[in-house]
């Protein structure tokens, strides 16, 4: 297996070819902010939070999907990147209704954490205050579109890991919305196995357990990572 050596923020690192810049950075203790990325799910490079600068290329590249190459020189924390990352977070906050105070994920939300990382003490962009519905038709879980940032982790986990493909993205552009079944209430979708993986991987307060109230959402995706690794191991082993 060939190995590529590269520089990340002045640190030298050697990685197996095909590994991502994100993994390479983590190897030398550098955390690049991510939101739509989740280990165990296919990368989509949609949130653009993990963009890094690569010497010799005019374009910014997403670390979650760009493979390491021999001799790459990568900058992960320039002032331009910091400003762009803060703008991505502001775009997300102003696009939805992220009222942290009354949110089920308050204190346990990856969007909230990233807002702290990028130093957002206020949004420089005006809030849109869109009118979005809440779906409480499922007997165990709820979906609050006001908190949804369209990272599509729920769509991917339901398709790639559970295999039920209950979720998908409907419409286009700013009208995009996560839909279940034939744009039916979640509770009416009979292909749903009630497994709750989507709730587990949702980074914000969009998907939650009924009964949880403000600050009570405690889901983490380590269980999913273990499940996917176990399956991969099973497929590899004879």
């Amino acid at each position: 297996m060939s190995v590529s050596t590269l520089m990340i923020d002045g640190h030298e690192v050697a990685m197996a070819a095909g590994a991502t810049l994100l993994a390479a950075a983590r190897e030398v203790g550098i955390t690049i902010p991510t939101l739509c990325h989740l280990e165990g799910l296919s990368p989509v490079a949609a949130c653009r939070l993990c963009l890094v600068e690569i010497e010799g290329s005019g374009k910014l590249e997403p670390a979650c999907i760009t493979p390491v190459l021999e001799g790459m020189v990568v900058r992960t924390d320039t002032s331009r990147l910091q400003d762009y990352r803060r703008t991505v977070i502001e775009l997300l906050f102003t696009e939805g209704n992220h009222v942290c105070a009354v949110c089920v994920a308050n204190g346990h939300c990856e969007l909230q954490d990233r807002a702290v990382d990028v130093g957002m003490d206020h949004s420089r962009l005006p809030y849109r205050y869109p009118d979005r519905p809440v779906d409480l038709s499922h007997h165990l879980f709820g979906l609050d579109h006001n908190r949804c940032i369209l990272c599509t982790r729920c769509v991917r986990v339901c398709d790639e890991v559970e295999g039920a493909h209950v979720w998908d993205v409907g419409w286009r552009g700013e009208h995009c919305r996560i839909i279940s079944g034939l744009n039916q209430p979640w509770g009416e979708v009979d292909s749903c196995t009630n497994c709750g993986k989507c709730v587990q991987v949702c980074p914000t307060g969009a998907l939650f357990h009924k009964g949880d109230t403000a600050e009570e959402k405690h889901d983490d995706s380590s269980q999913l990572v273990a499940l996917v690794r176990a399956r991969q191991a099973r497929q590899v082993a004879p």
Partner: protein
Amino acid sequence: MPGVPSACSADSGAEVGGEIAAEKEQSFEALESILRQHQRSPASLIEVLNLAQETYRYLSDDLLRHVARNLELPFSQVFGTASFYHLFCFKAPARHSCTVCTGTACSVIGADRLVEALEQELGIRLGRSKADGSIGLGSVRCLGTCGAAPLVVIDGLVAKQQTVASVLEAVRSLRL
């Protein structure tokens, strides 16, 4: 000229519930040949939806379920794909359709004046239909006949170099 497809003016965020007029159990047999022609491959979804809308005028829930089952695709993927494209609509289009081209050439020569006049005349916003289902006011980005700018398509017929007067006259002649 073959009828110009006009985006039926379903709202982009329309809720699709069961409240559409009672849909008698249709067999959609007109789709059978195209489904066979493409060996029911999932890649033919958009081709099938194009023919479905041409034949049945809009994509009802039952029609989408029929297509999803035949192509063995998840309902959410079928609806997600159908709702992505501007020309597919999920509610019965109005009896008449009035579509204003809002492409660059038409806009530069005054398409927005036509839209304002029509919105006022019909009492509806662009992209909506009249409550009584008589007419839908839609827009299309460019039909590629910019020599005829500004251009309005009424019930599939292209009318060129339109003015506020000519457009209102054309709509009034429909006797809604």
